[in-house]
């Protein structure tokens, strides 16, 4: 698995670099607009806009990680470079596992970088505009007044992030499955890419519809424990979808796909 992972990193180095350079440029843009801003409304608006761009880019980043991961896998299945990978003495499970692990590692590194940027930018803004600090104090006062525990909300955010990650990987695996499925019966079809996408979309809609009718375990969420329990059915469902897609993709690669 280690060697497969090494080559996943190498193959995706250029596209990963593009994403990171984009983030670095936006960060520089934000810091420059922050430190050159005067205490005027228009300057603060400029800082706000650049911060908004960073938030928007963070979302774009994860979409790009998804697209790159699927595009890379589709390339291996549909072009001759697939020989390079599939002629190695490795099982399809190891090959798919290495691709997922790379996506997980890159997504994780990206998430840590984004969190680091957010924390650093917030601190820089607090240093630049003292008023932000006093706003923070005000928020803290409101929290205390209503006896709201910030730590509880932090854990809730962690819960939602974990749920998002599970859901994200189930969608990545669903796309892998759709690409592999189309490589079996549409091997020489002209519009194979479009059909793969439609298969993916169809499967995604069906899965989201099923997920929508899964009953919640706890109707009201007041405690952290309750939140985690409330997220459990959706997380378990997405994990089951992911496992089914891994199994299906590996089976198709092992017995049905012809390169």
């Amino acid at each position, binding site marked *: 698995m280690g*060697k497969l992972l*090494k*080559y996943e990193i*190498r*193959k995706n*180095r*250029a596209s990963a670099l593009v994403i990171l350079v984009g983030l670095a440029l936006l960060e520089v843009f934000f810091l420059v607009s922050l430190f050159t801003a005067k205490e005027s409304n228009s300057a603060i608006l400029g800082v706000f806009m650049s911060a908004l761009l960073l938030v928007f880019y963070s979302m774009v980043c994860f979409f790009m990680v998804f697209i790159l991961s699927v595009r890379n896998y589709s390339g291996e299945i549909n072009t*001759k*470079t*697939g*020989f*390079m990978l*599939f*002629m*190695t*003495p*490795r*099982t399809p499970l190891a090959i798919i596992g290495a691709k997922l692990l790379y996506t997980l590692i890159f997504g994780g590194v990206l998430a840590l970088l984004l969190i680091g940027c957010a924390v650093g930018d917030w601190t820089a803004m607090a240093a630049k505009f003292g008023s932000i600090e006093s706003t923070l104090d005000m928020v803290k006062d409101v929290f205390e007044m209503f006896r709201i525990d910030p730590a509880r909300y932090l854990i809730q955010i962690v819960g939602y992030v974990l749920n998002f990650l599970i859901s994200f990987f189930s969608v990545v695996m669903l796309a892998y499955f759709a690409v592999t499925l189309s490589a079996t019966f549409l*091997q*020489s079809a002209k519009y194979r890419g479009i059909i793969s996408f439609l298969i993916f979309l169809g499967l995604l809609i069906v899965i989201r519809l099923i997920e929508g009718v899964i009953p919640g375990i706890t109707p009201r969420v007041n405690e952290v424990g309750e939140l985690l329990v409330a997220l459990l059915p959706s997380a378990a469902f997405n994990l089951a979808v992911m496992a089914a897609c891994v199994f299906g993709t590996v089976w198709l690669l092992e*017995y*049905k*796909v*012809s*390169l």
Partner: protein
Amino acid sequence: MLICDNVTKRYGGKPAVNHLSLTIEPGHTVALLGPNGSGKSTLMKMITGLTRPDEGTITFEGIPVGKETKRRIAYMPTEAFFYGYMTAEDAGRYYEDFFDDFSVNAYKTMMGEMNLDMNQRLSKMSSGMVAKQKIALTLARDADFVMLDEPLNGIDIIARDQIIDHIRRHMADTKSFLLSSHLVDELERVIDYAVFMKEGDVLLQGNAMQLRQERGMNLTDMYRYIYG
């Protein structure tokens, strides 16, 4: 020993390989002969484990082809199959990482003999240079079974001689070679068994010497007679 038993592969209902049976024993060099579309590449991909037969079985040393046999079977596809970023050096490192029988030194020696630059990006090489580099990469594996798909395609006469020479040098009693080509006169110098294919069917197969004696003609003329 490689055994293909009644192997069939269809694409869109049309057979690419049709009920083919073939046994290749160690020490033999077999030529798969036939025009484009006769099923030679499909058969090689099935032996490598890249493509599954719809019917029949393929075993190498008694093991169905798959992950384990990939360690012992070296395959050179006819197409360029390298990742865009790769130099000849990178390709060697890749093979070294995945195949225990790969020798970097043997690869570098062959690349030097063919006047190829290890640091040149493969996507920037001419088709003739890539053809020679692929041969060097594949023959640098000390595999028990070596398959070269159209090793002489798109290269000049001098390079062809070099490649035939390299193939000949790597032959051993313990190794089998399976070579595909429609350039029969070049291959005739090295093979001892021939399989003539057309549209997925085996039209004729046998020991090269016996075929020549029985039909009173060399394999090149036999090729012209069969496909002409």
